[in-house]
């Protein structure tokens, strides 16, 4: 009986620590300056179709300081890999040391998939995301909306909570989103370090967001 009470207390205490750490991590994102120490390692989440196009337009603008670049795509995505490879080869300079890699994880959710099975497949994707993020230890996770980014961002957050490394979460909501955030956007808005929207109507609704006009 006392043992049970003790166990409940211990679990409750750990949860409290967890929440305090989470709050601290999210609060202090802006103090983290990975660029001041050298190259910035980026984990780039590439969704299907338009998501990949948008994220590659953003990647195009980033300087050579952002390296290595680890692209993560869903296992059922065939087209993104080709787009990424041709983008990276066009960026390759003779004296550049830029490196990139492509990793695959199970898709969190297919288009038209029901809500209940989406939760299960997202948890499944988390099983792959955790070891991947723990191994790569990026400075920044860059994502723009596909469900694939949720487990990866959760893994990145966990790295910070456990005190292993602070990983910045940079989210750019798709240009498609004018009046409402995507489901992924709504989930990641409270925990992102930098949350970009591309239309002023969203900036008005989500005060923590950053609005620089259309950026893709």
């Amino acid at each position, binding site marked *: 009986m006392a043992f049970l009470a003790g166990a409940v207390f211990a679990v409750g205490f750990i949860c409290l620590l967890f929440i305090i750490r989470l709050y601290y991590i999210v609060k202090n994102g802006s103090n983290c300056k990975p*660029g*001041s120490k050298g190259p910035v390692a980026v984990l780039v989440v590439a969704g299907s179709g*338009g998501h990949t196009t948008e994220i590659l337009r*953003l990647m195009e603008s980033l*300087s050579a*300081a952002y390296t290595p670049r680890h692209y993560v795509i869903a296992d059922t995505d065939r087209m993104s890999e080709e787009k990424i490879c041709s983008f990276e080869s066009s960026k390759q300079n003779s004296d550049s040391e830029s490196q990139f890699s492509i990793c695959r994880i199970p898709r969190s959710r297919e*288009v038209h998939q029901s809500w209940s099975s989406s939760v299960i497949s997202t948890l499944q994707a988390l099983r792959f995301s955790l070891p991947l993020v723990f191994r790569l230890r990026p400075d920044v996770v860059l994502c723009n909306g596909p469900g694939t980014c949720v487990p990866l961002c959760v893994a990145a957050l966990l790295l910070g909570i456990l005190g292993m490394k602070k990983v910045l979460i940079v989210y750019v909501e798709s240009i498609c989103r*004018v009046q*409402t955030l995507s489901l992924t956007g709504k989930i990641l808005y409270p925990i992102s370090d930098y949350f970009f929207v591309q239309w002023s109507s969203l900036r008005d609704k989500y005060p923590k967001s950053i609005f620089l006009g259309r950026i893709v």
Partner: protein
Amino acid sequence: MKTVFVTVGTTSFDELIESITSPETVQALKARGYERLVLQVGRGSLLPSADSCPHITLEAYRFKDSIAEDIKYADLVISHAGAGSCLESLGAGKSLLVVINNKLMNNHQLEMARQLHMDSHLLYCSCSTLTETLRMMNLSVLQPFLPGQPKNFANFLDKALGVQ
């Protein structure tokens, strides 16, 4: 030959392919002077054969590495509301008619099509109003679409992350 290019990106949109190849719609296209119809059908189950539409030259395929050429030679682009397809067509300076897919979850694509339509960058309709739109459309009201500025994003991020 005046050409219409239809694209559904990486999705499937059988309703659009069916509508655009229906006799009334082909008739509407011909009445506007279009003589060639190129269909990019993506993952859809309908892949019309070249001879399935009398009165108009028809080509259909699923995917290409790049649809830039097809966009370049089109006089009108008819597209689903996906960001990539729209941005590519608008970026090439083409007249764009966006067709909304009512079967998608929450149909958020409507937001962007509506906004870009309000800003006079494209026309939009649904499959059921496609023929009517093609008959009545006035492309001269469309305004040029300026590209987005990813450099603003890069500059902001460099500053925020302390990149030298």
